[in-house]
């Protein structure tokens, strides 16, 4: 995904030079006020240091967990190794619902549901990324979309029997006993987290190529069935 986006971004940068990017994303002044929710843990600006969370200068186009000296969660390190890069799109998804993008992140923030709030916040954060005018940006990420999953998808009742059959495909790699060496555990997840995470792979927001492929061909009902099965797996 990174490569594909990168190529796309470069193309756009050539086509559309001089985009005022932060302003394209949202209202920086409103974003500064919204940033009040973040600053208990994250600093920005000239003298920013790492506190509970890493400082956020230069966050755009940085790989997840790549800021040296900060002790990231295992989940964030894994997301970074898988190729998660912070751009307007991935940051938007993360701020909306941190655990949807990085399941066991330590960031205890329940999420910012309003798309315009997120856009404004990102516009503000963007001003602290190095040399923002040179940061490549793909068109879809300049205007963040709302990542709210359709409530009807979340409300689907999965068929656990079908889930058990479908799960046999997952269990080639993921272990049913919930151990997680090299490959994360997928048992006993709350249904909503499971469904949101699978749809994030399906939409290629989460970076892992195997999971993008596997989730990509699952229907909404099949994802619900898997969630129902793994939730109660003994």
């Amino acid at each position: 995904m990174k490569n594909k986006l990168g190529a796309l971004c470069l193309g756009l940068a050539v086509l559309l030079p001089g985009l005022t990017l932060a302003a394209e994303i949202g209202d920086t002044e409103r974003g500064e006020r919204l940033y009040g929710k973040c600053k208990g843990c994250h600093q920005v600006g000239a003298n920013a240091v790492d506190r509970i969370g890493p400082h956020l200068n230069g966050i755009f186009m940085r790989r997840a967990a790549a800021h040296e000296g900060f002790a990231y969660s295992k989940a964030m390190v894994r997301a970074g190794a898988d190729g998660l890069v912070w751009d307007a799109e991935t940051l938007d998804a993360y701020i909306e619902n941190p655990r949807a993008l990085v399941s066991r992140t330590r960031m205890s923030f329940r999420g910012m549901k309003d798309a315009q709030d997120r856009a404004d916040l990102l516009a503000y954060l963007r001003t602290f990324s190095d040399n923002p005018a040179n940061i490549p940006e793909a068109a879809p990420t300049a205007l963040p979309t709302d990542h709210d999953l359709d409530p009807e998808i979340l409300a689907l009742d999965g068929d656990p029997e079908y889930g058990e059959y479908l799960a046999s495909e997952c269990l080639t790699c993921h272990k049913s006993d919930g151990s997680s060496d090299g490959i994360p555990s997928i048992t006993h997840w709350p249904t909503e987290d499971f469904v949101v995470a699978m749809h994030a792979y399906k939409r290629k927001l989460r970076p892992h190529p195997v999971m993008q492929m596997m989730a990509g061909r699952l229907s909404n009902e099949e994802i619900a069935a898997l969630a129902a099965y793994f939730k109660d797996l003994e």
Partner: protein
Amino acid sequence: MKLNRRIFLGTGAAAAASLSAPAVLASNHEKARVVVIGGGAGGATAARYLAKDSKGEINVTLVEPSRTYFSCFFSNLYLGGFKELADIGHTYGTLAAEYGINVVHDWAVDVDRDSKTVTLAGGAVLPYDKLILSPGIDFVDDAVEGWSLAAQNAMPHSYKAGSQTELLKAQIAEMPEGGTFAMVAPPNPFRCPPGPYERVSMVAHVLKANNPTGKIIVADPKPKFSKMALFQNGWNDHYPGMVDWIGEDFGGGNVSVNPDDMTITIDGEETKVDVCNVIPAQKAGRIAEIAGVTDGNWAPVNAEDMSTKADPDVYVLGDASQQGDMPKSGFAANSQAKVCANAVRGALTGSKVFPPKFSNTCWSLIATNDGVKVGATYEATDEKIAKVDGFISQTGEDSALRKATYEESEGWYTGITSDMFG
């Protein structure tokens, strides 16, 4: 409809066979019987899922000659010193004790599809309602001039894991300083498409550490191979100048060996070598041919449930099957086994049969913490198992991603072996 027809046929056939084959199925209040031949990624998985999901409704017998199964996948990592032999050895105790599978360590020597029985080398005769063959590969006779199974100690194939793998590792360790390791790579299709090239990587890894002036030559009848750019970039980066890959264009398919003199002749040029790993052309494990379900070297199957084109009550999984687009890999066999087990259970017990879904991912290790992968999803069409979507690692990926890919492969190994052996 299919379900009813099959149960009817099964019952009818058993009745016709009268006393020689005891009656089967619910009509006589006996359990349906499935015999699985071959305890690898296809057979062990199919047996386990049938036993587990039927909750005792199906009597499952697994016939496998080896008491300890050494997985071919990860056997290259043993050659490279990344795994111990014990790490890739698995036994069948859990399948017997926890899943109630009747595990028989014997060779299947005959299949009578009329009486629906399997004969074992020890003389036992096993009746079946459904027969699942997952025998892996055998080698095509005279595929490499000068080589036969009689020469496998001088020139090991090491393409069935176990003592052959140990032998090859010992031979690599004993290579003289600056010596030559030769490989004869097989023509398509063959087990584990990236396998020979991962093996080259692992041999190079060992030589780099212990015998850095050692050389590797590969005679290959193919113009290209799986993950070719990834492997060749990796060889250049980690083992510059060590690997000489001779493809079809340079006569890599025109090869003969002499196990007595330890020479290999590639396109007319004879070379004395210290180790020669001959991986011959392959075909379905012999029992598939004996059962009469092969056409040419492989057993054609229906994509929907892995039943053979020759007999709806005989299924072939994994390497031995000719199914379409899936590679011959342990992952693929495991994937096919679950589709097959679901269909067989449905046919025998009336349980719900879900639509088939297949997938595969093959990880390969090029050097320490330099893992790559290729994968795809597949669907059943009327003609074959057809590829839907896929991905492959990219050249130039950073070291963190390559390390994560290797760690992921280790996770997969524990995952799939748990899925096979419980």
